[in-house]
């Protein structure tokens, strides 16, 4: 058991480190990119220029990475919190034996599950005024669409505990309702489900932003997720890909983009493994 606990802690620490790095990066993101400097065009990493090299315009790739982190991190965190909140509500409702809760969750699930998520997201993006373009409403929409799965899992976990009978048994032991619901149910039993689902949603929101921005870049259109003065990680992928196809030495730019994607996926997997039941 102790070894399993250490492994779990190590995975959680790894995930938390990447999340921490993302938050710091988002806070350090420059509002605008540096001016183009053709003298430093397409510099490779560790060759005397910026640490991750530069793009074709001589702009440090680090700035793209930081700005991209600024675009995705907070909206992804908010989306994760939305899912976490709804999962907690569903789990507590099962334990409180609120009879209409299951029906409400089922109805919510059927309604939001009726359409492919990206279709709904694009309709939301269409409805947003251009000056309000941001990942926040898109991320929250995605989180609401994904919430039924998390709610269902949380409710099932609470159901396996025994639901209202579990609460009754703890009340008989003299615990207060607040302690029972917050500590015994949420912290001890639902924590794993909530962390897993929230981490997955964070990853999905980041990937969603990259996908939407990439599609916009490929068609030289404004992005749906950030203002024109900001760049997302999709820029690294698009620039890197088109440069390689065009025979330009910007493989490092594509590599950085893919590494950031892989780091996001690893973060979600690390939280998932850290939260797995023994």
């Amino acid at each position, binding site marked *: 058991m102790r070894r399993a606990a250490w492994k779990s802690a190590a995975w959680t620490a790894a995930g938390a480190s990447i999340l921490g790095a993302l938050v710091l990066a988002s806070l350090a993101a420059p509002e605008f990119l540096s001016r183009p400097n053709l003298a430093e065009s397409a510099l490779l990493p560790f060759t005397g220029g910026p640490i991750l090299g530069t793009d074709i315009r001589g702009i440090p790739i680090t700035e793209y990475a930081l700005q991209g982190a600024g675009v995705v991190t907070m909206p992804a965190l908010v989306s994760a919190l939305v899912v976490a909140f709804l999962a907690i509500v569903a789990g507590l409702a099962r334990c409180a034996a609120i009879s209409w809760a299951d029906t409400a969750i089922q109805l919510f699930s059927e309604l939001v599950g009726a359409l492919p998520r*990206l279709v709904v997201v694009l309709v939301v993006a269409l409805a947003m005024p251009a000056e309000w373009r941001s990942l926040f409403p898109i991320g929250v929409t995605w989180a609401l669409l994904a919430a039924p799965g998390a709610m269902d899992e949380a409710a099932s976990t609470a159901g396996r505990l025994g639901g209202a009978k579990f609460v009754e048994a703890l009340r008989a032991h003299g615990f207060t309702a607040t302690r029972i619901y917050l500590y015994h149910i949420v912290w001890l039993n639902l924590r794993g489900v909530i962390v897993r689902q929230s981490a997955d949603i964070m990853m999905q929101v980041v990937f969603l932003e990259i996908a939407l921005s990439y599609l916009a870049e490929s*068609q030289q259109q404004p992005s749906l997720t950030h203002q024109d003065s900001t760049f997302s990680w999709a820029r690294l992928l698009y620039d890197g890909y088109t440069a390689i196809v065009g025979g330009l030495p910007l493989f490092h730019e594509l590599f950085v983009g893919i590494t950031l994607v892989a780091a996001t996926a690893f973060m979600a997997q690390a939280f998932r493994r850290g939260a797995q039941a023994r």
Partner: protein
Amino acid sequence: MQGQKIVSMLVDDGYLVNTVLLVVMAFIPVVFGMFASAKGWISSKLDVVWNGAGLTPSVILALFATAYVTITYGASSHDGWPAWLRLILGAGVLGLADGMFSGAVIGTRSVFAEETKQRYVQMAILRGEREFTNALPNVLPALIGQLRARILLMLSGVVIVEVVLDVVGIGSLLWSGTLKQDFGVVLAATFMFAVFSSVLLVLQALAEIALNIFIRYAPVEAS
């Protein structure tokens, strides 16, 4: 917005056919994967491979696919590629990315593993029957529900794949309509997706009626 009839775009210009083809071609290996996993033909040691591909977002996989073909065919735009190649690549990306194949294989295996642990399956072995034939009718309704959810997820990926691989379809129509703020096109494309979803729901309901004995069963008083 340019006055072109959307119905003729969908039907005559092949938007509808391409999207349906993409989904069907991606769907077939997923179903085969589920069947092979249920029969135990796919080793759990390969899960790392499926998970790796499944973790990759569809946009990245589509990027790799286009990069490979661009380097092979030497075209910087997609005009030089045969349409069948784009459809096959698109189907491959749809089927592998976003946890589609991995979820289908691993999910089916765990559903069957849970069911075959049930006492009635262990007793069936003692009657000379097979685990698979005993467990399958009881897990099929759940698997069909999972399959419908996966297809809905696949429809999300269709938008990305069609745009990146330059396949003319409802997804790319929706995307360009959104970018150009063409409400009519967005409405039409969303409606088509809603029709797909409804058709899937009806198919799932029909399959449940056919397969789930508890739906069409009339209780009998045996005493």
